């Protein structure tokens, strides 16, 4: 039997755990990991610590280059897959390279979500998903004293802590359109804002933002329905959306993420999806759900790989998982309403 060629798109926790499981099950196979980002696998939850200066950038990365050599995996960073041809079983990269595969796992994760009304201002808003974003924050924070955060996802709360450590003045607009783990009801709104205010964050209460104007390189003016604010930098935190746009024309079933069954299989043979980019069918719910968090991603990555290697594991992630968000316990069963 010829050596199998496995391709993994993505380099986050799901992708790396998938790669590891594939290698365990198939020592002879060729495993290629594509990542559009030019950096190694990193611990996203440490990005705020890096911004706060508590750790060095090197500490963000959780796998060495040597690891991939030792595991005989071809890690290809900074190389973007732009399409997949499932009939020819190949992926196409943006530099026109065509790579054949026998098995494919899509684990591209998510990307920052910017609501439609803010997309016009995307270039002047900072997000925080990658080390590159974190570097931009570090660079920007050298020259500004005030930060306005719009949104309210998990990352924004961690970042806020980091900003306070740096003695920055932080204003926060908790937006109901934020990709909050639960619907933003009055109770949660009050609990979170109280906690933020206790820590010195100024909560800006408003219904909507009317205008954002860049006055100078490090000075923005934001007009809400109640007041006009000035800030040095503007952060947009509305959660993540599955990063699957490049697959839209490939014939895969995509709602927001890639639709997979409870075994993480897509409609194409030997093609799986795992992690934040997948919407997994839940037989009990009779609906699809999207996982979040590192633990879920690693579990899904592993299951996808094992199934690609011939196993038949069903995803068993309990929707009652509880997360603690800035000291507030929230239920992640939100995905059923996704």
């Amino acid at each position: 039997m010829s050596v199998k060629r496995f391709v993994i798109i993505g380099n986050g926790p799901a992708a790396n755990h998938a790669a590891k499981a594939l290698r365990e099950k198939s020592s002879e196979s060729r495993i290629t990991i594509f990542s559009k980002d030019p950096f190694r696998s990193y611990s996203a939850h440490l990005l705020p610590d890096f911004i706060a200066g508590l750790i060095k950038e090197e500490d963000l990365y959780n796998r060495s280059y040597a690891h991939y050599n030792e595991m005989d995996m071809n890690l290809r960073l900074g190389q973007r897959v732009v399409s997949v041809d499932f009939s020819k079983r190949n992926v196409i990269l943006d530099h026109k390279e065509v790579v054949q595969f026998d098995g494919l796992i899509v684990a591209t994760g998510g990307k920052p979500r910017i609501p439609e009304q803010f997309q016009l201002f995307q270039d002047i808003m900072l997000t925080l998903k990658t080390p590159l974003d974190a570097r931009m924050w570090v660079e920007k924070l050298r020259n500004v004293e005030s930060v306005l955060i719009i949104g309210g996802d998990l990352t924004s709360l961690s970042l806020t802590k980091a900003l306070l450590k740096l003695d920055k003045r932080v204003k926060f607009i908790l937006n109901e359109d934020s990709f909050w783990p639960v619907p933003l009801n009055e109770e949660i709104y009050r609990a979170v804002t109280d906690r933020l205010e206790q820590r010195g964050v100024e909560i800006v209460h408003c219904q909507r933002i009317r205008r954002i104007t860049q006055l100078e390189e490090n000075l923005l003016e934001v007009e809400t329905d109640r007041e006009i604010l000035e800030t040095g930098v503007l952060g947009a935190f509305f959660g993540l959306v599955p990063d699957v746009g490049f697959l839209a024309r490939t014939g895969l079933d995509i709602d927001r993420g890639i639709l997979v069954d409870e075994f993480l299989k897509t409609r194409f043979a030997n093609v799986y999806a795992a992690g934040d980019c997948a919407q997994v069918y839940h037989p009990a719910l009779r609906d699809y759900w999207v996982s979040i968090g590192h633990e879920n991603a690693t579990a899904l990555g592993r299951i996808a790989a094992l199934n690609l290697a011939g196993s038949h594991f069903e995803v068993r992630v309990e929707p009652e998982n509880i997360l603690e968000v800035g000291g507030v316990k929230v239920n992640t069963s939100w995905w059923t309403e996704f």
Partner: protein
Amino acid sequence: MPEVDFTVEVCGMAGDGTIAAGGLINEAMSHGGFSVLGFDSYPAEIRGFGRCVTNSRIGSNEIVALGEKTHALISLNDEQSRSRTPSLAEHSLVFFDSNPPAYVPEDSSLLSVLPPGAQVFGIPFGALAVGASGASRGRNLTALGGFAAVTGVDPNLFRKVIRDKFKSKGDRLVDINVKSFDAGYEYALEKFSDRLKKIFSKIETGHDPQKVMLSGNQAIGMAAIDAGLKLYFGYPITPATPIMEYLAKYLPEHGGQVVQMEDEISSIGAVLGSFYAGARSMTATSGPGFALMTELITHGVMAEIPAVILDAQRGGPATGLPTKTEQSDLHAAVFGGPGDSARIVIAPTNVEECYHFVIRSFQLAEKYQTPVIVLTDFFLHNRVENRPLIRATEGQAASWNVFPDEAFKDHYQRYADTPSGISPRALPGMQGFNFIATGLEHTEKGSPDYSPENHTKMSEKRHRKLRYSLKDLEKPAEFFASDHLDVGVIGWGSTFGSVLEAVEKSRKNGFKVGALKVTSIFPYHSETIGAFMAKSKRVLVPELNYEGQLANLIAHLDSKPVERLNFVTGTPIPPSAIQNRIEELLEVEAQ
């Protein structure tokens, strides 16, 4: 000030403008005040395709050897560039065409074989060049633009050298080539704004107008002209041919002529004839051609006719490895040929010495009336360096001919046995003197005489002359001199740069190591070399040959065995290999 020691390679197919791009990098960085050592390699086969690679090591301090690890690879042809990946440094920068004309399968792709830490910079070289100039030919310049933007090279350095390169072809060509460069520069500046490395922009350097960017070939050609060369005779052979090409272009402007002969035998014959008549001439060849010349070289020894022969060594034996470097002609240069035919052999170690040694070779040949062999190699010929070059004045290049005194007119003996062994030489046309050039053993007058007494006497006379020549031959130069050394490394030819770098690094590691540069290969300064060997606990001779040819020559000068480090890889010895061997010897010594 942070130090820079950065190696960049350009790799492509013949026709991609690879060598031109590498040359522009060398020129631009040299103009920016950096020390540069560049080396090109290309296929041996004479045809319109094949892999071309340029390697440029760029430093804020003086560079004496090639870089071992590539910090930036500019790929003009991905399939060819795949071969360059083993030498990539960790986190190397890789520039490639992100929009090739056709889809590329994985097994032809450069990116599929890169180490995981490589940082890739995809730039649509061809498309940008078309946009800038209307044609894709400028894609090598677009690539340079991307390289300059990411590494922080002042773009004006490149713009200047591009203008200089194309100015003879008209303003339009200058304009479109600068535009192609700018297109890549602007694209990379914007596209990779968050990944710009600024490696060179942190360095403050100044242009040193005394530094001249020269290849070994150019230095040899310039030296020949500055020495007043009248005639060059040669037959094409890699890697010596560029000397003939250089002289064919420039020698006529200085009143000389280049004659392509039917083979190497006729070339050396013509050189001997010219010198016999009093005109400076030379030939350059490589191992196979040198082998053909040996009989007539010994004719020069016996007849005591000057000759300058440049042997540009390449991989051998036989046709061997035409475009690879080696130092395996030493035995042939020193001993090749019938009889006891001792001759002078000198070996420069860098481009600057190529210039000075060639000028000196004419003078030595004239004074000692014997063939002088300048032993170079492919690496020395094809590498470029930017070092200060002070060109010889007419006086410094003046003839060293030893003419007979008028007083001897009536009893002139062409082969007079003098204390130095040098017999004053009359040239044809000098009235009252006889002119003899005989390959037969002869008396002082030049008459054939095969008697045991005469052959013994004249053999001794010719060898005495050679020994006497030592006073005009450069003594070995000691680096990091010390009374006692744990390891003494003796280097010659193009390998010496690697020796010097290895020794310097070992010394920085705290080891008591020194280097000796031997440029006078034969006759050699046995006392100096012997003293260096005697004061070294271990003696190491790294060479680019299998047999250890210099080591064989000098091993008898000290009782301890000579350690050898021999490479026949066809490429220069990496300094790290020498350093490792030094430190291995030190470990053994410590046990």
